[in-house]
């Protein structure tokens, strides 16, 4: 009942100064809208980065060789490489939470095909690699397990490589040479575009892992193993299983460190979206500053209002209002001003994100939590910045206030 009365009094005095109230709220409206839109834009770009990274492949787990550590000297990453094709095979045979696994052997160099040459990277993989990376073929076919066993000299070209070596032609069936080793092109990969780091993922040649390892590199060790967890929920369990299997394969005793590093998709996403998260935070805080400036606007107007209505306060005090009544009245007014500003700000933000999404390249995703926070914060701004003027009003001496001109 008392709150109803207070609210009524507050709304009435706000409505008496429509223009002023509107302008005062405008600070909060803009502040709240800015916070919501800025965070929405930040989170939109974050979501976009995440979806790009997801395009790397479903539930992907990556195993790298660890860096060496001998006698206190640390080697570079991969300097202690004991990972072999057998490791990948063992995982394929024994792991229960892994749906697909493939070794990756990296090489690269000048590739000659048709009348052109091209410098690109070559990845030696197994057929399951496509599934792990969530990648499709544009034409032709991928190599088979049999090709892997036979170290067949077949290759699948990425879109960029195909276009560069065989512009305007279908390269399937053509011959290319990688460092004097001839390969037959049997397929073309679908276009995948840039990854989150801006690298062109289509600038690649894929060949059987064994072929690349023994024919191009002449080494025993592979560069990494990629695997797909059977389910997103099993990521950590799958990682543990991989760790166990590899420790067993490498004969690592209890208490000894792993000689490999396991990373999953989530960790990579986290690292990549950290940047955009910081950007979101930055944008949000700048917008937050405007919210505080809006709050100062409210304080300013409330101070003016208290001075202007000194007589009214005197009358109210004389006829029996307690200091707390006057405090509550002005505080309610400030909170109503800022809360209404906050709510209108949400509408403005809704409109702005709609326009951004519909008519520009920018993707904006409104976060309900931020909406809630912005409104709560604007209410808090009302209380915080309304308190000083309200207390000033409540502390007035009724006699002085009555005779104030």
């Amino acid at each position, binding site marked *: 009942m008392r709150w109803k009365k207070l609210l009524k*009094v507050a709304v009435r005095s706000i409505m008496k100064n429509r223009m002023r109230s509107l302008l005062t709220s405008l600070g909060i409206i803009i502040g709240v809208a800015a916070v919501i839109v800025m965070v929405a834009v930040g989170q939109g770009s974050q979501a976009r980065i995440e979806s790009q990274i997801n395009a790397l492949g479903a539930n992907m787990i990556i195993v790298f060789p660890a860096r060496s550590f001998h006698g206190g000297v640390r080697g570079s990453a991969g300097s202690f490489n004991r990972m072999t094709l057998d490791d990948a095979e063992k995982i394929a045979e024994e792991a229960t939470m892994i749906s697909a696994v493939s070794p990756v052997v990296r090489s690269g160099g000048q590739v000659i095909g048709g009348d052109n040459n091209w410098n690109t990277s070559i990845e030696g993989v197994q057929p399951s690699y496509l599934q792990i990376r969530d990648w499709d073929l544009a034409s032709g076919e991928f190599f088979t397990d049999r090709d892997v066993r036979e170290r067949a000299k077949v290759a699948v070209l990425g879109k960029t490589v195909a276009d560069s070596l065989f512009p305007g032609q279908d390269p399937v069936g053509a011959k290319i040479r990688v460092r004097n080793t001839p390969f037959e092109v049997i397929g073309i990969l679908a276009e995948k575009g840039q990854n989150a780091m801006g690298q062109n993922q289509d600038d690649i040649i894929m060949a059987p892992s064994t072929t690349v390892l023994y024919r191009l590199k002449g080494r025993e060790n592979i560069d990494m193993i990629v695997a797909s967890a059977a389910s997103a929920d099993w990521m950590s369990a799958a990682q543990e299983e991989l760790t166990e299997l590899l420790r067993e394969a490498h004969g690592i005793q209890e208490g000894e460190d792993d000689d490999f590093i396991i990373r999953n998709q989530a960790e990579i996403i986290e690292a990549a979206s950290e940047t955009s998260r910081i950007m979101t935070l930055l944008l949000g805080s700048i917008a937050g500053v405007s919210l505080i400036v809006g709050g100062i606007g409210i304080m300013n107007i409330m101070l003016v209002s208290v001075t202007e209505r000194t007589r009214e306060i005197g*009358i109210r*005090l*004389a*006829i*029996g*209002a*307690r200091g707390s*009544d006057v405090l509550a009245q002005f505080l309610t007014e400030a909170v109503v001003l800022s809360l209404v500003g906050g709510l209108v700000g949400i509408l403005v933000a809704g409109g702005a994100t709609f326009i951004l999404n519909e008519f520009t390249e920018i993707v904006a995703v409104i976060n309900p939590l931020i909406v809630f926070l912005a409104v709560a914060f604007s209410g808090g701004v009302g209380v915080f910045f309304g308190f000083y003027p309200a207390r000033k009003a409540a502390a007035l001496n009724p*006699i002085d206030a009555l005779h104030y001109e």
Partner: protein
Amino acid sequence: MSEVISMQQITRDYRMGDVVVRALRGIDLTVASGEFLAIMGASGSGKSTLMNIVGCLDQPTSGQYRLDGIDVNALTRNEYADIRNGKIGFVFQGYNLLPRTTALENVELPLVYDRGNRIAKPRQRAIDALALVGLEDRLHHEPSQLSGGQQQRVAIARALVNQPTMILADEPTGNLDTRATIDVLSVFQELNEQGITVLLVTHEPENAHYAKRIVQLRDGLIVRDQPVTNRRNARRDLAALPTENEEADLSEAAAGKDGR
């Protein structure tokens, strides 16, 4: 009859820098229920200070003050506020109505702070109070739409809406012309006839003669306290005044000589 005001040796000093101004130097005053008291004095005589203390807007430097049997010497700010709300109705010289607020809402104002909910139906009570001062057809007019006399009537309605023990009127006719002055005084006389205690501060001896008792202040002391012998009746005086039409005729006739 019970005592509404009982004051013993009330003093009030104001400190202005190094100078102490002794506004009240020892007031003894007793007012019984149902009285109509006029407090007179030149400006600087301390009558406004006395009024503020009587109205619990200000507290005495020393002395004893009992209001309606309650010792009001050392109360908190909130307790004074509640006393003002429950026991006193103020009427000011400048009306002090809230601008851009209807007569009814102005009159309702004290009931907003009626903590004990003494008044059961605030809206109806406010309408009744306005009817009592003859403004039942002006409920939704704002102060700017009312004449000075009407505004002061709204203020009187506001003063009596909370059924106070007494009404304090500080120079209520100071801004009014003769007709409106007598008009407002007639309202006070009517209210007093209904048993409401009225304290009227005025510096016009004429106005004081509508009261039942005159208290004269000078330099912070009561120099005269006596009943009104030749009491005037505001309603009769009002009837005796020339009507507005006659006034208009008179002023037209006088226009040549008197510039007003």
